[in-house]
């Protein structure tokens, strides 16, 4: 099980255009990252807040609903956030790389 997940993460990391991936645990501490420390901490903090807000938006409208994933597309790249029960998987990808 663990190896499958590890392999998946490695594949994502090696995918075309992916700049880095961060795994954040329930307390907001990044437990696995492929970026440098300061960037990681920054992303982790900011995106945890944003994800909580987004989830709260979705659930306030309909409590039976839940957030599946969150994409923030900017000029330079796209940030993909997939929340899991208390965990967060953040990926930064540059989609227009050929």
């Amino acid at each position, binding site marked *: 099980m663990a190896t499958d*997940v590890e392999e998946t993460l490695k*594949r994502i990391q090696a995918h075309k255009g992916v700049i880095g991936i961060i795994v954040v645990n329930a307390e907001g501490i990044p437990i696995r990252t492929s970026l440098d420390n300061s960037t990681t901490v920054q992303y982790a903090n900011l995106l945890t807040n944003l994800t909580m807000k987004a989830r709260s938006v979705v659930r*306030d409208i309909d*409590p039976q609903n839940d957030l599946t*994933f969150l994409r923030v597309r900017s000029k330079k790249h796209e940030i993909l956030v997939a929340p899991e029960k208390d*965990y967060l998987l953040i990926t930064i990808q540059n989609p227009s790389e050929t």
Partner: protein
Amino acid sequence: MPPKAMGKGKQAGASDISRRRTTRMRDGDDMTDIGDGTENDDWMHSKALVKPDDQLDLSEQQLKEEFTRILTANNPHAPQNIVRYSFKERQYKQISSVDQLAIHFALDGNMLHKDSDEARRQMAKLGMPDGEATGLSLISQAVQSEHAGSEGGEGAGAGAAEGEDQQKEESSSPVNEQTELEQEPILELGKDEGREDAATPAPAAAAGGKKLTNQFNYSERASQTYNNPYRERGTATEPPPRATFSGNVTQWEIFDAYNEDFEKQEKNKEKKVVPGRQAEEKTRKKLTITETQSDDVTRIQNAAQIVERMVNQNTYDDIAQDFKYWDDPSDEYRENEGTLLPLWRFTFEKAKKLAVTSLCWNPKYKDLFAVSFGSYDFMKQGNGMILFYSLKNPSFPEFIYETDSGLMCLDVHPEHPYLVVVGFYDGSVGVFNVERKEPVHRCTAKNGKHTDPVWQVRWQKDDLENNHNFYSISSDGRIVQWTIIKNELIYQDVIQLTLPEAPAEGPDGTKVSTVGCGTAFDFHRSNDYMFLVGTEEGKIHTCSKAYSSQFLDTNLAHNMAVYQVRWNPWHPNIYITCSADWSVKIWEVSDKTTVDTNSENTENVSTRKPLFHFDLNNSVGDVAWAPYSSTVFAAVTADGKVFVYDLNVNKYEPLCEQMVAVKKKTKLTHIEFNPVYPIIIVGDDRGNVTSLKLSPNLKKMPKEKKGQPAMDPAQREALEQAKLDKLLNMVRDPPADVSKAPAATEKK
């Protein structure tokens, strides 16, 4: 009475009566009171002794007796013995000393000590400078400052004075610490005084007009008890541990809480109902414990999967958009022509040397399909693989299984999408459960394994005892039904494909019965017992599960091996076949063969003509009907092309003939339509699976009239059948006219 006479009279008494007047020594002479002489001169005419009548007669001796008179300070009016009642001792007690003070005269004077308050005030009023700081006694200083303090807001001058005083106080205090202690009680005294003297004017340290509100001079008398020195004693406790607690209340949190509560209630109910399953629960608990202790990384498995798909979607964004929304607009201008838009290509490293031997869409998840890999080459046989791909993740398969022998076919169970049956090149069959890694079942040589590669397997409906079962067909001429009973595969030969020729003679004279080689079969969608079998000799047998030794019908369809035979999904009597002889043919099951008990049937091979016959210029690997229309089908050939036909539009020419394979010399081996989306997947012999989107011309479906509700399946079926029937009527042999058949069915 004259004083002289009085003195004499009292003399005789010898009493203790104190006198204020000093006693005089009495001479024998007459006492002449010189002091009072002038006063007595008035009424003292003579010096002759006047002896009153009642004067005591004393002798000469007695007269010379000296009497001592002592003047004391005792108050003659004060009582000598005062007795008071003492409540403490409950008796009368004599007071030992009696106050002897007698005030004769009192006069209040108006002299002030120069250092007293009043004196200062007066001096200040008079404008005299205050004494030097050092000259001030600490006592008065303290009192003064207290005064200043108690009367705040007197004026700027007063404030400055106060400040000055305090400064002085402070400057002197470190010098003399001892006095500080005294100062404190004195300060208190001063405070009291201050309160009492609130009305008195403020002391003026510096010059300045003072408002004297009260001219009265107060004098105070106070006494001070000894104040014990203060000592501060305190204890500090450890502060209680604090934690910040914050909570949000939102609608969904309330919802979650209710859900949890509900689940707990359910569990309690279950526990009550089944109290005997404690052991199970314990094992369950153990499982959950180990789960929570597992590695952090495994927790995000789902999230990782989602992210992988998102990343892929980003990378293949244009393809995903095309898949969803692209419809070739040029199809409007090209009637009778369609195109296939290439979408994703699915490849896997380890499968690059293998050929795609079978494709199957998952009946439950419309984006999931299974691919089996093996090799068609007799000489090069290696391992095999099963890969499950999802359209959402084109870069990596969802499930991977490797097998030691090449796989030739695969089928996914319609009701249980996790069960997959495969047929191996070595003749065995196996069942995989997607949730587990190992094959669930694998038949052995003893267990009815085929002696030749298994070309096709198909799941059947569960039998009467709800056991899963499936059929397999192989080149060794056997069609075998396998049933899974209690986790074991049990086989049962259904039919043996016997050749009509007489048994050949072996080298030593024994008769070796030759059997045909089955290569494909298909079960009728509604009449489950009827199925078609394609053989390597090119024959199509119509068989029934009920008849194990005879075929219902045999059709000499092709000159070479039949690679695929499929029933039309809409029409019950039409089927299509493709073969290595470069042709695709569409047949109809004629009425006379459905109920046939003629024993000569095996010899009487009908030489019916196909309804439609297409020549595709190369060996046709696979053919498939479209699920959305009864007149559309597609075929793949060994030269890498895909042909799509719509009989409704053009009975003779394909609507689309497109080269799909990337490299030349790749043969396309299999094709499948997606039941929901307008895409097809095509497998080739290099391990690639390509997905293509059908252009609008290729996927013409019956148009619904506006305003009418959507067609239900029965209606649709009827419509499709009618459509096909209309076509068929044009090409079908008229039933009465058999002789005209060749001419009438001429391709036109």
